[in-house]
C-alpha cells in the first residue's frame, strides 16, 4: 500500500470503464449519460436547436451546463440567437446561464442588444443591460446611451445607471440626468445616478 505509480494503461482502463455500458442518449434516465450525449454534439453547428431544447427541458444542472458550454464553444450567430431567446424563460438559473454564455461570444452577442433592448419584458431588457456590461464598452456604449434616453422602466434604468457609470463616455452624464428627472418619485434611482456620475467623474 501507499504511493503507487499510475501507469498510462491504468488511466486508460479507467477511461474505458467509464465508456463502457449502454450508449449516451439525450433521453437516457441517467443524467451523466445525457450529459455525455450533449458533449457528443460539441462542435456541430447544426446542433443549436437540440442544445436549446435540452436546456429548456432537462432539469439537471450538469446536463444544462454541458449544453451551455457546447453552445458557447460554437460561437456562431445562430447559437447566440438561440441562447438569447432563453433570457425570457422563467427559470432564473437558466437566464443567468444564458447571460454567461452570451458573454462568452461577444462578437455575436453585441448585435443582439438592439432587439433585446426593445423586448416587451423589462426583465429581458435588464439582462440585455447586464450583458452589455460584460461586453466591451466600446461596442456597447452607444446602445446603452440610446436605451437610457428612452427606457421607461425604473428597474431597467437602475441597471442602466450602473452600466453607464462604467462606460467612460461624457455623453452619459446628460443621459443619467434625464433618467433621474424621469423618476422623481424613486429615490433609489437618484442614488444610482449619483453613484454613476461620481464614477464617471473619477474615470
Amino acid at each position, binding site marked *: *500500500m501507499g*504511493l503507487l505509480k499510475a501507469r*498510462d494503461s491504468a488511466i*486508460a482502463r479507467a*477511461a474505458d470503464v467509464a465508456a463502457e455500458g449502454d450508449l449516451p442518449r439525450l433521453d437516457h434516465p441517467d443524467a451523466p449519460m445525457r450529459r455525455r450525449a450533449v458533449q457528443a454534439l460539441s462542435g456541430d453547428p447544426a446542433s443549436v436547436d437540440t442544445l436549446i431544447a435540452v436546456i429548456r427541458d432537462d432539469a439537471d*444542472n450538469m446536463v444544462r*451546463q454541458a449544453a451551455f*458550454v457546447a453552445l458557447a*464553444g460554437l460561437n456562431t450567430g445562430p447559437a447566440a440567437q438561440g441562447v438569447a431567446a432563453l433570457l425570457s424563460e422563467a427559470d432564473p438559473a437558466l437566464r443567468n446561464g444564458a447571460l454567461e454564455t452570451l458573454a462568452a461570444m461577444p462578437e455575436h452577442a453585441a448585435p443582439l442588444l438592439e432587439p433585446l433592448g426593445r423586448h416587451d419584458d423589462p426583465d429581458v431588457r435588464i439582462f440585455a443591460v447586464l450583458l452589455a456590461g460584460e461586453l466591451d464598452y466600446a461596442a456597447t456604449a452607444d446602445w446603452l446611451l440610446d436605451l437610457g434616453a428612452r427606457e421607461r422602466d425604473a428597474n431597467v434604468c437602475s441597471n442602466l445607471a450602473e452600466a453607464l457609470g462604467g462606460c467612460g463616455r461624457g455623453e452619459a452624464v446628460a443621459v443619467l440626468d434625464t433618467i433621474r428627472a424621469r423618476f422623481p418619485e424613486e429615490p433609489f434611482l437618484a442614488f444610482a445616478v449619483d453613484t454613476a456620475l461620481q464614477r464617471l467623474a473619477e474615470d
Partner: protein
Amino acid sequence: MAVPNPAGDTRLRVTAEDVTAFCDFFYKKTGISMDAGRRYFIDRRLEDRIAANECRTFREYLSLVKFQPAGAEMQALINEMTVNETYFFREDYQFTCLTRRMLDEIAARKEPGLDRIRIWSIPCSTGEEPYSIAISILEDWPRASEFDIEIIASDIDTRALARARQGIYQARALHRVPPRIRDNYFRPLGKDSWQVVEDLRESIDFSLINVSSPTQMARMRNIDVIFCRNLLIYFDDLSRRQTAEHFFDALNPGGFVALGHSESMSRISNIFVPRKFPEALVHQRPFS
C-alpha cells in the same frame, strides 16, 4: 509584418499586429489567453523562436508552427510561453486540508486494500506540487498505508516535465521544506542542490496534457482530487468553463477540486458545490 531589428543583428522584431495574431493562434491551440499588452514577455520569446528556426518573417514562422506535422515547434513555443516558477509546499494549507479532511471523506467511500485513491496535479510545472502532495500524504495522513494512492502529474510544457522527472532543485525551491523532511525525501547533490529520492520520483506519473484538448482530457477519469492552482487565471471565460466541465467529468462523484487562492470556481461554473473546510475552500462534484 516583422520589422528589422535596429540593433543591427539579423533577428526580426515582431510588430503589434504580429503579436495580436500570435495571441489569437496561441489561444486557439492552448486555451491560454496571452495578454498582448505584455509585449516585453511575448516579443523576446517569439523572436527567439523565429531566429531559432531561421524564419525570415513572422508569417513564415506561424506557417511552420501551424503546419509542421510532428508539432515539435508548437511544443517549443508552449515551453517558452508558459511560466514555471514555484516552490515546495506553496499554499500548503490545501495540502493540510487534503490530509485532514478530503482524504478521509474519500476513503470512507472506498474499500481499503481494494480501491485506489487517485490524485491529479495539473499543471505540475517542474514537480514541486506533486512531490509536496506525496510527502504530505506520507507524513500526515494516518491511513496512507491502507490504500494504493496514485498521483498523476501533468503539464503542457515538456521541458518542465523533464525537470520534474529529474527532481533536482535549488535551495530556493526548498525554502519551506523543514530540515527533517528534506533529509528524508531528498539527497544532496552539492552546494545548494538537492534531488528527490528515487522511490518518490518513481511513485509519480508525469504526463503531457493540454487541458484544451478534449481528447487528452477524456483520458482522465476516476480522479478523487484535482489540484489545479494558478492555471485558470491565464484562461478566458470560455476556456475556464470548458476546463471546469472536463474536471467534472474526470472526477468521481464526491471528488474535489482545489484551485489557487485567487481563483473562484463560483465565478467559472455552478456545477460544483463549494466545501468550506477549516483549512481551505475547495469545490466538490455532487454525488448525484
